[in-house]
């Protein structure tokens, strides 16, 4: 589904990603872990198409297409979704309006009919229940006045509505209390499926107790320095990242199948 080869990205003259190799297949859940400043969030935003990064080398091929050549909205319409670490507040625009505009843009791209307000509401209600979200959130401006937990839940809720093929979740667990973490994890698990790939970008392995990954990769200094199964996350939890940075040698490809 997604093949990242030797990806290098810089901000100004500062190289942050220094040769990422990673292959993600449908149905897989990958966790990307790593210390602060290792480039985890940069990787997530480079894939989603944020401005301000220069891709100096390498490529990312999503379902046979050059992902990095697409505009952010084109990537979303093709099925890429990024749950933000810091969801943005949009004053004056209701969650309902925002999400319906997004869904219909994606549906239109896929040649599906646009949903009217009634059908949309029906669909949305079911998904809200899963995430234990109050319906009143739909009429409130996007993320404005939401608590940290509500914002994160809202990201996963958007993912549930937009049904992406590839979902990248950037630090979705940070700032969540244990109850919220369970709810959010439950929401993510429900979205696992043979057609969908999920990438969990996280600093801690806490989330991985609830959403068990198929592969764990450790990112350090802009490269994937170690890849393994879910046990790797536990190892990291016990030993910390320092152990890795000492013994690390760059590996050529992330997940081998």
């Amino acid at each position, binding site marked *: 589904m997604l093949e990242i080869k030797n990806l290098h990205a810089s901000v100004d003259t500062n190289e942050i990603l220094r040769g990422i190799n990673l292959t993600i297949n449908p149905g897989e859940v990958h966790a990307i872990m790593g210390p602060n400043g290792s480039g985890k969030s940069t990787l997530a935003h480079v894939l989603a198409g944020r401005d301000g990064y220069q891709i100096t080398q390498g490529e990312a091929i999503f379902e046979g297409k050059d992902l990095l050549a697409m505009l952010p*909205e084109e990537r979303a319409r093709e099925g890429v979704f990024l749950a933000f670490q810091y969801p943005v507040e949009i004053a*004056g625009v209701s969650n309902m309006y925002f999400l319906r505009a997004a869904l219909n*843009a994606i549906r239109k791209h896929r040649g599906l009919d646009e949903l009217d307000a009634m059908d*949309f509401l029906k669909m949305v209600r079911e998904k809200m229940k899963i995430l234990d979200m109050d319906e009143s959130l739909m009429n409130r401006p996007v993320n404005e006045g939401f608590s940290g937990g509500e914002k994160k839940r809202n990201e996963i809720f958007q993912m549930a509505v937009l049904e992406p093929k590839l979902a990248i979740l950037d630090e979705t667990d940070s700032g969540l209390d244990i109850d919220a973490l369970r709810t959010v994890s439950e929401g993510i698990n429900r979205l696992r499926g043979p057609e969908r790939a999920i990438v969990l970008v996280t600093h801690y392995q806490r989330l991985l107790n609830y959403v068990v990954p198929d592969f764990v990769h450790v990112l350090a200094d802009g490269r994937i320095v170690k890849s393994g199964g879910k046990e790797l996350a536990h190892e990291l939890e016990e030993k910390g990242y320092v152990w890795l940075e000492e013994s690390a040698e760059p590996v050529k490809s992330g997940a081998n199948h």
Partner: protein
Amino acid sequence: MSAATESRTAYLANFARLEQKLTQGDAWFHRVRKEAIARFAELGFPTTKLEEWRFTNVEPIARMPFHSAEFRADGLSSELLSELPLAHAAFEQRCSRIVFVNGHYNPQLSSRDLPDKLIASSLASAIKHEVPSVREHLARHAAFQNEAFVALNTAFLEDGAFIEVPPGVRLDAPIYLLFVSTADQPIASHPRSLIIIGDDSQASIVEDYLAIGEGAYFTNAVTEIVAGKNSVVAHYKLQDENEEAFHISTVDVHQARSSNFTHHSISFGGALVRNNVNVALDGEGAECTLNGLYVAAHKQHVDNHTVIDHIKPHCSSRELYKGILDDKATAVFNGSIIVRKDAQKTDARQSNKNLLLSEGSTINSKPQLEINADDVKCSHGTSIGHLDEDSVYYLRSRGIGAKEAQSVLTYGFANDVLNKMKLDAVRVRLECVLLARMSGGHTQLEVEGQ
């Protein structure tokens, strides 16, 4: 002789012609007209040397040889009018509608059935019939001593609306005043309205200034509003003139004890627009809310001047004006709050926020607080900003296109002004017009959530 002096002379000659048409019943007001034209002759058109007109140059108005609005365009159909986005609500809703075409009352397009107790008529006929409340209030609130445009309007007053709601009446349906310019000729019209809301009464009045067709014309409107004790008045002033039009308007409000007045000012159109709103809080416990939105693009210029005069104690005022400027548009916000010596416990808040969508657009924002009492709460704030890049990215990352993301965010910026409007029919129409403006004409798509 300079162009401005020439133009002043032309106005004086027009006045002489108007005087010949005045009849017996006009005598009492003829005296007021004479005072006003004399004052205009002294003042002339304001220049940018005057502080109040520093950023708004009215020379294009002074230079233009506008005819008096003797020109009528009868034969306009209500079907045609109701297609105008902002006029739509006035034809769809159960309401009282009074229509003026090029400043002249048009009975065919106006509602036949008015609610009992409501007086809603042409001001010209009310002057002729010497209605006592008209004699008492007309030209008493909109002072022309220092305002050339109010003086012109007073001198050339031909018609407008006279609304009187007697004490203790609650009007459920809004009153729509439609001022339509047909813009086929360079005419000047001076619509004048007098709105008197009795003690303990409640009413909503919508003033719509609209254009059919292209070409320059000059609208110089004055509205006087008298809000009686304990009355609740909502006044909407919507302006969507064509992009060659000159629009100067003055709204003067007098509020009695415990009255509650809300003014919504929406400016979309016009080449050169100046809106003056002056509110006198002249009774304890009176509250006023001024709520404004101006949207300008190309080379449009829009200037909002407001004065809230806290005369008596325990009054509160809330003011929020928001502007959206694109291309080479320029705008002015000048919000003045005066707290008189006796107006203790005044609670005044003012805010002006501007969104600049282009590098070439300009806003001059100036709050003016003049506080002469010591136990008061007054605050003001101004902001000028561009669209937030993170917000644009967030929307795009969800599949929303760049252009639509911009229009959604701009709409969101304006939304808290529109949300304060209690008349749903007006608010919904304005949302449509706004979204259409933002997205270059794809109204339907946007409103359907595409």
